[in-house]
């Protein structure tokens, strides 16, 4: 079975496909927790659609990396390479939207890189070509909510500031110069001052270290497949 470590010195080591595939999968599952619980019907639908896009993108990569069902349902937490920020509990709606913004600002520049990389398999470039468009639309959505809530009521602003303080230490695995260039104008418009770039940050998922939250998430996501191996509709 393929595993994250087998790709460490793989033919396309420049782009860590495991990190993208697992990030999209885990975040998709987190978003799916909002189904029937979002503040409005429109947002319920929006979060469901975004979760589906992320799931489809992850599947496209996992199908290239190995057996998608085996990789999604039968790996242990320490074998996942998602950025830690993707596995954090969903929090309130403001936290969810700010986390989407953090991840969207990462993927929006990453997918075009993958689409243009001749060293990755053609199927992966195909997934990326589609994802470029989908992610650009997601970014539009998360940016508009962050601005609306940050520059909103006293209560919404307070919650966004709390979310920013909580998420900032998890930016390390998605941030880069271009990420800061993407996110700073949005935060500024949202009247949320960007915290220092050199503040401490987590970076441990590349070594298989995770927060305690991933285990619980996987327990729910994987339970059906593990209770009934090989089951199909």
């Amino acid at each position, binding site marked *: 079975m393929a595993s994250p470590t087998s790709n460490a010195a793989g033919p396309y080591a420049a782009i860590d496909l495991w990190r993208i595939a697992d990030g999209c999968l885990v975040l998709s599952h987190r978003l799916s927790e909002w189904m029937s619980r979002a503040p409005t019907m*429109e*947002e319920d*639908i*929006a979060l*469901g*659609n*975004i*979760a*589906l*896009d*992320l*799931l*489809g*993108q992850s*599947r*496209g990569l996992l199908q290239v990396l190995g057996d998608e069902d085996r990789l999604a349902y039968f790996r242990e937490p320490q074998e996942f390479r998602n950025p830690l920020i993707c596995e954090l509990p969903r929090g309130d709606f403001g936290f969810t939207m700010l986390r989407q913004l953090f991840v969207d600002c990462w993927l929006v520049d990453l997918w075009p890189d993958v689409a243009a990389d001749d060293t990755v398999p*053609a*199927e992966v*470039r*195909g*997934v990326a*070509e*589609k*994802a*470029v*468009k*989908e992610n*650009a*639309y997601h*970014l*539009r*959505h998360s940016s508009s909510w962050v601005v609306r809530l940050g520059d909103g009521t006293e209560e919404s602003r307070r919650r966004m500031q709390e979310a920013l303080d909580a998420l900032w230490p998890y930016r390390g695995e998605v941030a880069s110069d271009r990420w800061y260039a993407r996110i700073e104008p949005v935060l500024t418009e949202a009247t949320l001052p960007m915290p220092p770039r050199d503040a401490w940050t987590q970076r441990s998922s590349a070594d298989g270290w995770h927060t305690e939250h991933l285990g619980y998430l996987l327990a729910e996501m994987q339970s059906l497949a593990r209770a009934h191996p090989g089951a199909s509709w």
Partner: protein
Amino acid sequence: MNATDTRAWALLAQVPDPEIPVLSVVDLGIVRAVEDSADQRRVKVTLTPTYSGCPATEVIARDVRTALESSYDEVEIVTQLSPAWTTDWMNDAAREKLSGFGIAPPAGRTTLPLLDVGTPQACPHCGSAGVEEIAGFGSTPCKALWRCRSCREPFDYFKRH
């Protein structure tokens, strides 16, 4: 397209999109190629999904297979992701059918970087140009929810993508 492909294309034109049954898979532009064997008993169809996570994709592949198996001994379905599907591949007939079905068709042609999915040119119910967005996401990945300021009816907009 050669003379023998025509049979397969005619069958495909009868396969509706499961979410938007007024359109066939051919209208949607997701059938990229059709090749049938010299003896016309085998056929290979290349499909390009609309969205990465569109739940209809697998249903469509199954429906295409069922439709072709009525006429061919062997049906092969290939998924091709690149180039990515775009609403530019929808034919004009499809745009008219959408409008008649109450869904505003994608306005114009796609442009990079694709943050701009366009705006409906008119309300599909009353034809008024005074329309506003309610939500960027709708009942399926390909649609957004809009409202007409004249007749007040909400409607789906097929995003330019």
